[in-house]
């Protein structure tokens, strides 16, 4: 097409400004698509963290709070669940399995989770995938620990190493359970979930390391050695939360209601999938704000392009005049400038999209490793194609603005050379 070729040639003549404009549009397109990718990636990472668990039981609190501290290790429990209540729930006829979770201690900033060996078989992530051991196996001895892959990597642990658990959850702790060190019994394979950042020990071990403690500190002169503690009754008094699997999904709501109405202790039973949806409802507003901001950036880039074309218009009066002299109608001039806007935007969109995928491809392993966020490199979705097409359309329309001005100018001062 004649007009497109002319527009291209004219742009080549001003390639520095043209390239900058294309880059500005490309960046804005990358941002627009990138925000969407991160949003869906974050959602999937969260949703992939827990699967196959029907209910999570904890002390009475909001469902989000319970979900966040029990599964994502974010925040803290409002209260504990007594061992008696745990056993009551475990003995309900509908319950197929129940896994206790006990939080509160840490190791170099990584959370220590007290649980039992069932945890490794029943906890599922990413559409029902089970955990697997990169080396070693589940705990056999009282003072055995199983660590997530990030813990092993960042602290350089291997099976057989001795570790000391600190009291509390700060990354620097002043009170340590130094008298009862743990042995690394197993290292879990990478899961991309908070498990990677967790040190797992048995519930009994949690009880054992606190047995000679009172009011959150060791009692002087009353220490119980690691060997003595093995002979003591280590039945836990309380746990933080429990994951429950049911024999039939049909019983979910019934069991949930029964736990919520449990008379002896105020408990909350939540459905993890439902609580996650609630979370999306909350963060949805922030996500919308992000999309709006990225759309504004696109608008700004287009505005920059219009400014660029408009400012060069004056210098290009000669160009227009020559075009008119060789028989171009004012309509051709109009088409030429509109095509210029469209072309610049199209180039920006293409460069931006290619740039985004190249960036994703390069940064994906790093993002997965550092943030546990697996960003999918999917082809563009239909709604993204629509977005991109409408940006090109908007660019073409924005090009009409200087085009109309040029159209009017070319009618007015056509061949006339002002002195």
């Amino acid at each position: 097409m004649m007009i497109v070729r002319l527009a291209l040639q004219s742009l080549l003549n001003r390639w520095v400004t043209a390239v900058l404009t294309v880059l500005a549009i490309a960046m804005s397109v990358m941002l627009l698509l990138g925000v969407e990718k991160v949003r869906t990636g974050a959602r999937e990472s969260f949703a992939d963290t827990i699967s196959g668990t029907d209910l999570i039981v904890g002390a009475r609190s909001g469902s989000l709070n319970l979900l966040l501290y029990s599964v994502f290790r974010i925040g803290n429990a409002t209260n504990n669940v007594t061992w008696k209540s745990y056993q009551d729930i475990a003995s309900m006829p509908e319950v197929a399995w129940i896994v206790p979770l006990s939080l509160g201690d840490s190791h170099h900033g990584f959370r220590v989770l007290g649980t039992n060996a069932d945890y490794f078989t029943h906890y599922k992530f990413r559409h029902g995938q089970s955990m697997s051991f990169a080396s070693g196996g589940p705990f056999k001895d009282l003072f055995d620990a199983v660590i997530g892959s990030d813990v092993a990597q960042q602290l350089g642990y291997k099976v057989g190493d001795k570790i000391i658990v600190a009291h509390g959850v700060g990354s620097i702790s002043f009170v340590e359970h130094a008298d009862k060190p743990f042995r690394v019994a197993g290292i879990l394979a990478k899961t991309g979930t908070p498990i990677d950042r967790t040190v797992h020990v048995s519930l009994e071990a949690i009880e054992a390391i606190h047995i000679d403690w009172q009011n959150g500190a060791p009692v002087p002169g009353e220490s119980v050695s690691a060997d003595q503690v093995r002979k003591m009754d280590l039945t836990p008094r309380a746990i933080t939360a429990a994951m429950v699997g049911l024999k039939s999904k049909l019983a979910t709501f019934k069991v949930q209601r029964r736990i919520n109405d449990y008379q002896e202790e105020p408990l909350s039973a939540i459905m993890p999938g439902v609580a996650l949806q609630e979370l999306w409802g909350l963060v949805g507003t922030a996500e919308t704000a992000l999309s709006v901001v990225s759309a504004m950036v696109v608008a700004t880039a287009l505005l920059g392009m219009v400014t660029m074309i408009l400012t060069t218009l004056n210098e290009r009066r000669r160009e227009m005049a020559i075009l008119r002299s060789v028989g171009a109608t004012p309509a051709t001039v109009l088409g030429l400038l509109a095509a210029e806007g469209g072309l610049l935007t199209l180039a920006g969109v293409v460069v931006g999209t290619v740039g985004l995928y190249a960036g994703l491809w390069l940064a994906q392993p790093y993002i997965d490793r550092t943030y546990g966020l697996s960003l999918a490199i999917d082809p563009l979705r239909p709604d993204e194609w629509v977005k991109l097409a409408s940006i090109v359309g908007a660019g073409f329309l924005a090009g009409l603005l200087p085009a109309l001005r040029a159209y009017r100018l070319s009618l007015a001062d056509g061949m006339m050379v002002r002195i």
Partner: protein
Amino acid sequence: MNTKTVIASLAILAAFPALAEQAEHRHLGPHVHGQGTLDIAIEGKKIEMELVSPGMDIVGFEHVATTDDQKAAVEKAKGKLADVLNVFQLPAAAKCKTETANVESRKETHQPGEKDDDDDKPGEPQHSEFHATYTITCEAPENITGMKTAYFSDFAGGQLLNVNVTTSKGQTQAQMTREKPTLDLTGVM
């Protein structure tokens, strides 16, 4: 501290466990006019649903029905709610049929399964709820892609239904509203 005070405080302390034993268990669920809850559990060919809606949404009042008109309104509403596949329409291709449908209207303070006593004073203001449980079987459950509801056209007071879903594929939560009386189940089926 003299002996008298010690004895007095001991007496008070001793009295506390007794008080605790006598204390009734107080517990009340949320009750928001305009909002009902629909729980759906699907496994294999079986679907179990439970609907809890404030009386305000269904019949426009929450006291015990006294006039003939009010009694008729409650009965009519119960009849409509019992026809579950009309209130909550599943795709025809799923070939579903109702096994059981149980609708009751009860005072909110009642525990599930507790028998409704009829000694409520007529006309006394209180919160009451409609409670419906359904069992449905579907020959082709794989065709259940979603649900359409006539709940909002049937009951003028209903504004929102919070829907909780659990299936063997996963769990989700969604809202059905007067403006959007549909539910998408493709993600969990």
